[in-house]
């Protein structure tokens, strides 16, 4: 893992000291809220519906056990004993008090963490494949490059006041688990003539105008990455609209000017600035790559794992859903579900955080990951340790065997916390998970991604859910719109709106009708919901959702 240099440590310390004094001046009335707001947002502090919210960056979703322990300590000392992991690999604390926030930031700084650029019109936390460095299908670990981008973008003087927020995601695998096509810039490692470079995707995004990113360069050599990124953001900084917040993201800039025009401008800018990059960034990158050297994997028998699978059905079910193939034989990637049926998606108590940290330390080469799907990952676990890990997880309420299934739902905080929300998301997620657990259907239904957003900004990624749910305010009542057929992978597509929305009471039965219809429609159990939808289109699903309309038309 990357370790802060003296420069990084001093920078964070100074920045935290500045913010401490800004908070003091706000409390004594020297600063008005209008003056203070941009300062607190720069440091990840929001004022939400019921309280402040501190959003802490977890760069490219990677943590060590010491950091996870401090996240738990912060939850106990200054919050309500839990944290909420987000769809951008961050953690949010929902109840900090203004006076305590500088102490929270200092505690984070002590373990090389911060909340800088987790808000505002800046380049946000760079996200990456949560299986980076472990996945069997990977070309190379994307995290060194993500760290390089983090260093380049943090406090970048040219990019502190962009037209709008700016999100970058990187993947080193052809199977895209980082939703790169729904980011302002998505980077996919690709191989050409034995050399690894990047496919550069630009102008993707969800929100009110969802768009799939477009390829700007199909192969960019690695050493050209930073100058090329700088050229893109620089063109956007000047060309992006500042007259209308809803048209300010780069997806609109690319859409309105056309990809060719945008590309011409980027290439011009790139030729101009390329000579300024003299290779220092590549020296830095080499150092960072050494920090991310793979752990020393062992070779050991897997007997305990196979025995446990044979004798314990609960362990077998969990290992069927929550494990992913590791690049090293004998190892597995463990996804710990933060989606116990009926619980709040993405929430972990301090006790759960400590357990996950201890398991990572004892069995997992001291590494943890946070996925954009709001789960926690132990990326490097030897299979012989899986039975012990499972029983420890189970005892702390973390043994749910549902990763990738219908109850593994992404949900934004919605109107239970968020000041921007137009409806609640969390209770809908809780009720869907509880209902399908009662029906005992979810393993039969198989892979199905439900994603819920509580407003048009789409933090819950509903546009790329196989089933997307969008909560709106319709004439003073919560109303939920369904989209179908979305996909956030390398075959990314935006879901299609199914029809009129449903009330909070109607939405759970509607989802049930939809899923039961799928079970009738699929050709064989191996055909997933998404495959069935792609084969048949909207019509049969629409008929299941709106039986009355069907009856009236008949």
């Amino acid at each position, binding site marked *: 893992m990357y370790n802060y240099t003296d420069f990084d440590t001093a920078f964070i310390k100074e920045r935290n000291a500045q913010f401490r004094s800004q908070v003091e001046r706000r*409390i004594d009335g020297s600063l008005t809220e209008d003056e203070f707001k941009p300062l607190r947002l720069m440091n990840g502090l929001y004022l939400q519906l*019921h*309280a402040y919210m501190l959003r802490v960056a977890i760069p490219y979703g990677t943590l060590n056990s010491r950091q996870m322990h401090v996240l738990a300590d912060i939850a106990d000392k200054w919050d309500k004993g839990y944290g909420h992991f987000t769809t951008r690999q961050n953690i949010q604390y*929902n109840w900090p008090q*203004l006076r305590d926030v500088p102490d929270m930031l200092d505690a984070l700084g002590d373990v090389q963490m911060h909340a800088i650029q987790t808000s505002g019109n800046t380049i946000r936390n760079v996200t990456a494949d949560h299986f980076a460095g472990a996945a069997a299908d990977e070309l190379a670990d994307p995290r060194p490059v993500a760290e390089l981008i983090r260093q380049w973008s943090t406090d970048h003087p040219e990019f502190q006041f962009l037209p709008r927020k700016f999100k970058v995601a990187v993947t080193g695998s052809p199977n895209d688990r980082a939703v790169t096509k729904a980011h302002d810039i998505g980077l996919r490692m690709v191989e050409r003539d034995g050399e690894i470079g990047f496919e550069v995707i630009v102008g993707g995004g969800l929100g009110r105008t969802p768009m799939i990113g477009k390829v700007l360069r199909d192969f960019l050599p690695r050493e050209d990455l930073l100058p090329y990124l700088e050229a893109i953001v620089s063109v956007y900084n000047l060309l992006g609209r500042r007259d209308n917040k809803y048209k300010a993201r780069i997806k609109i800039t690319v859409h309105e000017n056309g990809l060719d025009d945008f590309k011409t401008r980027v290439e011009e800018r790139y030729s101009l600035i390329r000579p300024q990059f003299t290779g220092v960034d590549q020296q830095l990158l080499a150092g960072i790559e050494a920090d991310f050297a793979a752990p020393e994997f062992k070779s050991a028998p897997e007997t305990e794992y196979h025995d446990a699978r044979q004798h314990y059905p609960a362990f077998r079910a969990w290992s069927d859903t929550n494990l992913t193939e590791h690049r090293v034989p004998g190892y597995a990637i463990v996804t710990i579900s933060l989606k116990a049926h009926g619980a709040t998606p993405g929430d972990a108590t301090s006790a759960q955080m400590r357990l996950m940290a201890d398991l990572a330390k004892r069995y997992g080469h001291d590494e943890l990951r946070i996925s954009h799907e709001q789960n926690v990952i132990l990326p490097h676990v030897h299979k012989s340790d899986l039975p012990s890990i499972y029983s420890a997880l189970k005892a702390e309420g973390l043994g749910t065997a549902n990763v990738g299934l219908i109850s593994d739902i992404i949900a934004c905080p919605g109107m239970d916390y968020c000041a921007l929300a137009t409806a*609640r998301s969390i209770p809908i997620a809780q009720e869907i998970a509880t209902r399908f657990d009662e029906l005992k259907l979810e393993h039969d239904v198989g892979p199905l991604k439900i994603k819920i957003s509580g407003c048009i900004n789409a933090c819950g990624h509903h546009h790329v859910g196989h089933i997307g749910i969008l909560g709106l*305010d319709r004439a003073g009542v919560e109303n939920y719109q369904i989209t179908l057929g979305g996909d956030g992978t390398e075959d990314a597509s935006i879901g299609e709106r199914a029809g009129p929305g449903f009330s909070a009471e109607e939405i759970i039965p509607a989802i049930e009708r939809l899923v039961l219809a799928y079970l009738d429609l699929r050709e064989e159990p191996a055909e997933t919901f998404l495959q069935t939808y792609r084969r048949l289109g909207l019509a049969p699903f629409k008929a299941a959702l709106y039986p009355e309309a069907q009856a009236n038309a008949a």
Partner: protein
Amino acid sequence: MPRAFTPKVVTANALLEGDVIYQTATGWSRDLAEAEVLTDEADADLRLIDAAQQIDTVVGAYLADVDASGDTPKPTHFREDFRAKGPSNYAHGKQEAASHV
């Protein structure tokens, strides 16, 4: 005939805790039931100006519609209902405070 004025309360977030607060005749309360109900538009505007000036106590003051037909004011929109009650997934915030009384 002038448009009927929907009764209002002045609401904001407390500077230090961020908690939802309501203006009373003499100060601020965490409880909507204790809020001062404003039935006159000019009066409501003045009360809002007064609230907005208290920069070292409150943040983001605005006027929220209430139903004043009962003994205590009630929210007319679900957002204000959630603000008055707290989140639905945990008994935190105002619900927690209420259980401590």
